[in-house]
């Protein structure tokens, strides 16, 4: 039994313009100690997927269906009290903007101590010791002196560390990180990813990392979920996604990337823009932008089908496997050849 098992998750928002199908039938699971990367362009439903699992959508105009089994208990049908116990204890979340989880008017140390006291039966002194330990673990220099600072006294990178300390303080089984390094410079990003990696080794937590950076996914994830217009279009082990991608959208993402290890005169570009989730295109949602579009693509939404010869690798595309293998090989060969000359 997986640590988290999400089945046919749908999140629809009722808005003045109509129903926004922000997540439309997403299925995945994650085991203890593993890292799942969710990639896709902005608006594809990555954040809403995770917010729904955490029960953080506004109740009023949201319709949620499906299941999110965490240790065999459905998070979606759970009462608010039980959910609060799980949040911040068994499951923790870090966001792109640390100020969404830090209170600007309270000292860092007190916020961390509070978080421990809320979920663990310890004395205040023990909780404070734990807070200090975590600040050191995430690499805050002179933690003893900084523990009584306010969030605004920290730089962006340091705040991100504090938020990670906050997320990890109760040894969560699952950490959900939504674009944790998107707002950071590359050298700080390297520090934070390093840190998450070390902490995972130490605590054995499972991590879901949402990002639009394929480099970050390639280096951190064990498994990858590619989302497009509220649906999963490809999923599988990271090596297979990068060495044998089987969906034209994934090819587009890989080809549109300028990269240090390849020389490209002209980038592959996906024409047009992502569709509206109010009125998504018929059939395959990617068909209006797909260079390989066929008649069937306009009518029938392709299901996720196993990729022959691979294990746990699924792709949603009507193209025949031969064509997909040929095109994927061509794309990757181009990048490798360029890497050699570059």
């Amino acid at each position, binding site marked *: 039994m997986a640590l988290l098992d999400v089945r046919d998750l749908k999140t629809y928002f009722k808005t003045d313009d109509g129903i926004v199908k922000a997540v439309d039938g997403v299925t995945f699971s994650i085991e203890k100690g593993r890292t799942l990367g969710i990639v896709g362009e902005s608006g594809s439903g990555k954040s809403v997927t995770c917010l729904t699992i955490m029960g953080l959508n506004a109740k009023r105009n949201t319709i949620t269906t499906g299941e999110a089994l965490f240790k065999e208990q459905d998070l979606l049908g759970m009462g608010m009290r039980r959910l609060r116990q799980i949040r911040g204890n068994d499951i923790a979340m870090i966001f792109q903007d640390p100020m969404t989880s830090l209170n600007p008017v309270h000292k860092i140390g007190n916020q961390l101590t509070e978080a421990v006291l809320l979920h663990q039966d310890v004395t205040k002194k023990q909780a404070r010791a734990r807070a200090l330990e975590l600040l050191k673990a995430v690499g805050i220099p002179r933690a003893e002196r900084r523990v009584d600072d306010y969030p605004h006294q920290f730089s962006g990178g340091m705040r991100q560390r504090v938020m990670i300390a906050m997320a990890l303080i109760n040894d969560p089984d699952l950490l959900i990180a939504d674009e944790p390094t998107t707002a950071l410079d*590359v050298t700080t990003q390297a520090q934070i990813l390093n840190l998450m990696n070390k902490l995972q080794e130490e605590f054995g937590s499972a991590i879901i990392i949402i990002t639009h950076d394929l480099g970050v996914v390639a280096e951190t994830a064990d498994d990858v979920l590619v989302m497009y217009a509220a649906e999963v279009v490809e999923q599988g082990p990271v090596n297979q996604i990068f060495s044998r991608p089987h969906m034209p959208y994934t090819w587009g993402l890989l080809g549109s990337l300028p990269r240090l290890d390849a020389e490209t005169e002209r980038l592959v570009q*996906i024409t047009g823009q992502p569709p509206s989730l109010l009125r998504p295109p018929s059939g395959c949602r990617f068909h209006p932008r797909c260079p390989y579009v066929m008649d069937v693509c306009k009518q029938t939404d392709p299901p996720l089908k196993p990729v022959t010869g691979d294990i746990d690798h699924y792709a949603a595309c009507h193209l025949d496997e031969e064509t997909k293998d040929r095109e994927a090989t061509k794309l990757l060969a181009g990048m490798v050849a360029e890497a050699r000359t570059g």
Partner: protein
Amino acid sequence: MAVSTDAQATEQARPRTGNELLIVEDLKKHFPVTRGIIFQKEIASVKAVDGVSFSVREGETLGVVGESGCGKSTMARCVMRLLEPTGGQIIFDGRDITKLSRAAMRPIRREMMMIFQDPYASLNPRKRVGFIVAEALEVHKMGTDAETKRRVQELLEVVGLNPEHYNRFPHEFSGGQRQRIGVARALAVNPKLIVCDEPVSALDVSVQAQILNLLKDLQRDFGLTYVFIAHDLNVVRHISDRVMVMYLGQVSELADRVTLYREPKHPYTGALLSAVPIPDPVKGRERKPVVLEGDVPSPLNPPSACRFHPRCPRFREGHCDVEEPPLYPMGDGHLAKCHYPLEHWPLTEEEFRQPGRQAVAT
């Protein structure tokens, strides 16, 4: 051995070829920090740009990289004369424009245009796209109404927008399309130079690719010269002919694109390059980033001598914190502001910490 001054070293390392469109010499911009409400007293200054020199040749793209706050935007705004420099010289197309009056600047304004990161913030939301693009033409009084409309529709087509969208408002376009409007507006007056300040940083990769391809096509078709600012090293490498790395208001390294990425000399450039994730699960996981200590210091109180010394793995006490390194010439116009430049690339962690030879100024 005679140690030459920074300026001399720079001069020697950068022989003028005569076709420089833009020359920037020792540019400085210090923002005063004041206290008091009625009698404002200057108590300190933010040295946002502190002695930057470079040149851009006609038809080339100079990429500018560096972490946020290192002064890229401030430098760009000074070059455009949108900010008054505290010191230094800006020579555009053979003319010193540093001190030109507004009136004298007017004809030059149409030769240097700027594209910004946030296309939405830089487009007037209440004006139609046709007007926004035409505005530049009208300011410079170029052509009759009919000519203007034809020119605008032509421009919309050039940047890949539907000319029939002439009457739409900015909010009716997606982020990528708005950036195209920004490009059309910049192109309207046939500029020679376009300064692009993080033009693709806010866009998704697929749309980013569209804009990067567009900028390259336009450069080829119209012989444009670009200063292209970004913090993404992949993007800068893709678009640039030469690359300048900035740290805390100064140039730390400058070289042609291939050399900079293949043989970085400054430890900061090395750290930056090693920190970029590679979209390849095998190669990516073999990557060993040089992890820098701490954060970028404040430009209010920059560190003494070499500004990078408190974070530098190669730091040598009594030298790097005492004597400011000049931009040492590394051959072929490659400059690096470091006493202990990297011997080769990539380096093991040990090699990174253990510098061999010292740099030679002349």
